[in-house]
């Protein structure tokens, strides 16, 4: 661990380890989060939520609540209906109730809200709202959602007679079936990726301040995408976009949970308009868990075809996707299943095919969250699980099987059978490094000895390729907004700089990473570069931070805008040094005259000259600044090799993760310490999902994961000391060769852990067991009774 910090004092002017600039503020309690916002006269909002999963609203009586002390407004769906605000669009072209009017469709759905002088009064008044429900049969079992006698959930949609959301297909079915028919070996497995929740430390909330005189709305909000949200508010609420300021201050973790627009944000806006005062809404932990964006919930049938020598030929899959009561998936519009199409993994296949059906159920909406890179988590889990099942059937070592089937370096850029163009990759060295760090052969030897003694030890491997950095705007948009990102850079006269981003950190360290990117290009120390983000009034338009897109998209924008500034600086330098531009060399931080290094000007001197007295060269404006909007030409494709070692107590079936080796290749590494931090967090997420996390429901549709006592997230005691390593395969199309890293570990770790547990259970003849691998479920598996969790 000491290694992590040894270079921090070097303060690199560019890439390298350095402490995070934002940490001085965050670690001293000087961060400013939404719940820290206090405005004069601010009121507090509390939401009444449905106790039922599916029920008709017969009547709502708010009179007692309105008379309760301190209450300034009580708003129901009927009130909103009158304003045309009862429904709002979701990010997937569906609609979602802002407040329920006709019926409630999941437990925890918003039914009414109260605005009062303080949080206690608002909460107390909720108890006085009298709602009469007529309880309907809920659709809880996703497998029965499309049965003819299933109750129809979305009666609000014209002509809707079933619970079908969409069908989606990718790859070539005919060709895939042909390859399967000719294969020596076919392995089939039903694989469930259960519903989980991102559970960020800070729950969602907002403070709305509508100024009726100016017609201006200021909204502090827990959002990962402030600009996209502003545009959507303008469209939904009819407030002109230039009159809306969305401010995402410090955000206490997002993981995709803070991408959608939640009804609560809209409530606070309506509350402020209705009362004429600022209104704060901050949900509590249970509200966050039961009503905001969940993740996963895919039931996948996976099939893999191979030769008897272990050459993988094809993969096909059939997926049933539970989208909850409203299709609130946050994904590029043309990708209803996100980037699930990369389920072909890191292997050179002859064919692949996927068919997916998405359905409504009486559960909270969402679907893309929890650091999943738009469903790549599910895709990677699918392929890495089924490849392990194939290794089991072929009696092959799972590492050897993978090495045999990797896409070879000379095949890049590689077009997969589902149409994705992997930009670069060199998989074998990454895999070999992980095996070397793990001492793979020794581990297998140890395992054999332990097995002979009846001890249960497992070694699990996962190798993943991610697709991150959405996206080229020609293919990728969210509700018509192209997924490109702006960046503005201004160098002040004294050579200090400010860079303004369209993306927004939720803890990933943008204020450091982006300062380092600019520093690398301009030679200005990161300490001298301020990074502004999160406020739509002082940052350029862009689509925000999720899907590991900040470095691939905004990172490219930051590098290119810095190069633009450098180009201008060069013109000024040539005037200052009285040589032609062609005679100048850039040496990080200054321009030197070719062949005469004694004659040079620093970027700081140039900045002063750019703002200073005297003429500038013809055609050169004063100032030293630039702006850009970067549209990526492709996604970036990071990869990694993960090896997990587990021990299982044969008596209690408890799983202990003994070691975890993670070798990541995210191309050019900007701040290795931040990368390792991201990886550590993602691996911990993976332990949670693999071993304990699941949002489950009882047969009435009651959410059984409504508190952190019921929905477990891992602690430091459940995780080993992470062993991280890296290889570097730069992205050929990214200006600095960087790829995303934010979600790699969350994507790659669950299959490694599950593969390790299943490997440990090999003596019991186990080829597959579903997450979460709680002691009880592992014990069931040991008895040959492994059952899906739903």
């Amino acid at each position, binding site marked *: 661990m000491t290694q992590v910090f040894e270079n921090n004092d070097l303060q690199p002017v560019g890439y390298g380890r350095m402490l995070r600039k934002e940490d001085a503020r965050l670690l001293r309690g000087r961060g400013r989060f939404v719940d820290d916002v206090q405005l004069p006269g601010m009121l507090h909002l509390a939401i009444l939520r449905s106790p039922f999963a599916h029920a008709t609203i017969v009547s709502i009586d708010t009179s007692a609540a309105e008379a309760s002390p301190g209450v300034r407004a009580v708003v129901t769906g009927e009130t909103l209906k009158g304003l045309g605000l009862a429904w709002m669009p979701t990010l997937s072209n569906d609609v979602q109730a802002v407040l329920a009017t006709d019926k409630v469709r999941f437990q925890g759905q918003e039914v009414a809200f109260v605005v009062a002088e303080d949080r206690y009064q608002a*909460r107390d008044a909720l108890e006085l709202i009298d709602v009469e429900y007529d309880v309907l049969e809920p659709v809880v079992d996703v497998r029965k959602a499309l049965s003819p006698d299933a109750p129809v959930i979305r009666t609000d949609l014209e002509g809707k007679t079933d619970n079908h959301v969409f069908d989606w297909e990718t790859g070539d079915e005919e060709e895939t079936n042909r390859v399967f028919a000719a294969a020596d070996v076919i392995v089939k497995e039903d694989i469930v990726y259960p519903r989980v929740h991102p559970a960020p430390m800070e729950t969602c909330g907002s403070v709305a301040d509508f100024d009726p005189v100016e017609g201006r709305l200021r909204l502090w909000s827990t959002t990962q995408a402030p600009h996209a949200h502003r545009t959507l508010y303008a469209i939904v609420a009819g407030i002109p976009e230039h009159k809306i300021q969305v401010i995402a201050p410090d955000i206490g973790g997002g993981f995709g949970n803070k991408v959608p627009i939640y009804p609560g944000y809209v409530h606070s806006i309506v509350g402020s308009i209705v009362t004429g005062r600022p209104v704060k809404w901050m949900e*509590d932990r249970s509200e966050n868990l039961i009503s905001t964006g969940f993740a996963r919930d895919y039931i996948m049938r996976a099939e893999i075809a191979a030769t008897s020598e272990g050459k993988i030929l094809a993969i096909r899959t059939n997926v049933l996707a539970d989208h909850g009561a409203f299709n609130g998936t946050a994904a590029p519009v043309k990708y209803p299943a996100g980037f699930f199409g990369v389920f072909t993994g890191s292997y050179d296949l002859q064919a692949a095919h996927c068919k997916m059906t998405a359905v409504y159920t009486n559960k909270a909406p969402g679907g893309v969250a929890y650091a999943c890179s738009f469903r790549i988590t599910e895709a990677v889990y699918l392929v890495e699980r089924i490849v392990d099942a194939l290794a089991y059937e072929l009696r092959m070592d799972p590492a050897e099987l993978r090495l045999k089937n990797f896409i070879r370096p000379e095949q890049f850029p590689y077009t997969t059978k589902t149409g994705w163009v992997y930009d670069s990759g060199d998989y074998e060295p990454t895999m070999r490094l992980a095996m070397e760090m793990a001492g793979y052969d020794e581990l297998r030897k140890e395992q054999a000895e332990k097995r002979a003694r009846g001890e249960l030890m497992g070694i699990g491997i996962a190798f993943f390729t991610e697709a991150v950095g959405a996206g080229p705007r020609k293919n990728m948009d969210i509700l018509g907004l192209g997924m490109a990102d702006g960046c503005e850079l201004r160098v002040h006269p004294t050579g200090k700089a400010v860079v303004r981003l369209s993306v927004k950190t939720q803890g990933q360290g943008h204020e450091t990473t982006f300062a380092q990117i600019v520093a690398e290009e301009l030679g200005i120390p990161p300490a001298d570069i301020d990074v502004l983000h999160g406020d739509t009034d002082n940052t350029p338009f862009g689509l925000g931070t999720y899907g590991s897109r900040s470095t691939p998209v905004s990172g490219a924008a930051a590098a290119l805008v810095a190069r633009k500034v450098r180009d201008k600086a060069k013109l000024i330098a040539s005037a200052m040094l009285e040589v032609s531009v062609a005679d100048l060399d850039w040496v990080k931080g200054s321009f030197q005259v070719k062949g005469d290094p004694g004659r040079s000007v620093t970027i700081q001197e140039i900045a002063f000259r750019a703002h200073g007295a005297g003429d500038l060269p013809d055609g050169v404006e004063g100032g030293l600044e630039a702006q850009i909007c970067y549209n990526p030409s492709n996604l970036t494709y990071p990869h990694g090799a993960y090896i997990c070692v587990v021990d299982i107590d044969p*008596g*209690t079936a408890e799983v202990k993760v003994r070691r975890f080796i993670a070798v990541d290749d995210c191309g050019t590494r900007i701040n290795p310490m931040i990368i390792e931090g991201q990886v550590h967090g993602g691996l911990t997420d993976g332990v949670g999902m693999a071993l*304990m996390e699941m949002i489950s429901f009882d047969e009435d549709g009651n959410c059984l994961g409504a508190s952190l006592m019921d929905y*477990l997230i*891992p*602690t430091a005691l459940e995780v080993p000391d992470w062993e991280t390593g890296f290889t570097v395969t730069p992205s050929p199309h990214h200006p600095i060769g960087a790829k995303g890293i934010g979600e790699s570990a969350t994507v790659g770790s669950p299959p490694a852990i599950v593969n390790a547990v299943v490997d440990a259970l090999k003596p019991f003849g186990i080829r597959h067991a579903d997450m979460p691998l709680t*002691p009880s479920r592992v*014990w069931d598996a040991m008895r040959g009774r492994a059952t899906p969790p739903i």
Partner: protein
Amino acid sequence: MQVPAPFEYERATSVDQAIGLLERLGSSARLVAGGHSLLPMMKLRLANFEYLIDINDLHAELGYIRLSDDEVRIGAMTRHRELLESDVLASVLPIFSDAERVIADPIVRNRGTLGGSLCQADPSEDLSAVCTTLDASCVIRGPGGAERVVTMEEFHVGPYETAVADNEILTEIRIPRKSFRTGSAYAKVERRAGDWAVVSAGAAVWLDEGRIVDARVGLAAVGPNTTGIPEISAALRGHEPGESLYELAGAIAARSCDPVTDTRGSADYKRHLADELTRRTLRKAVERARS
């Protein structure tokens, strides 16, 4: 942030003053000690009381561990952390430190108390299982200084229900000591550090000339109350400890308990754990008694 319904709050200055307040306020009042069970329930509005009587200032009066030849007396306000860190307790009743190591987390252990844990009477509660294992008795004080002493079986009336009346306070736990070689141990299976038990078991044995004079097993999370199993004691008494005996005890534990399937695990698995953990804790307790 979850916020409780309105309530009045008073800090008690002595045990008798607290009892006086309880006497006056009846069932609308509740004592708060560590508060780590009560306050979350109030914030979730699962529990609503008009009055809270804070007894944390009574720690000086009720926070103690006293060892005599024939018993150990522990004050009801003794905090988890004090139980965990007590060398005296560790030397005579190591089951306490075994259990305290796996109860919640340091933040809870800094505030939570023995009395609060027992009075919460959660069927998964660890210290109740420990006290059941040790055949503890509970001292309950009422108006006028009247004290009564009840067994753990009498103390636990049902899930979340105890023999302590609205105008009474649990003041002390008494654990008998016997003049034999003794050992005790506790084991818990949890889904994650700090979680409630899937199942936990405590065991205590008393040995004389290599034979079991007495043995007790207490289980948590396998029935409506933490359960002592007299049949195990009867089966072990008079025998020399060994694997076949532990196996027998485990089998009795498995068939005597009454677990239900929930998100922590299936009833079958819990029954298996009752067996497994009974064997493990007995083995450990005997090891300790012998050393």
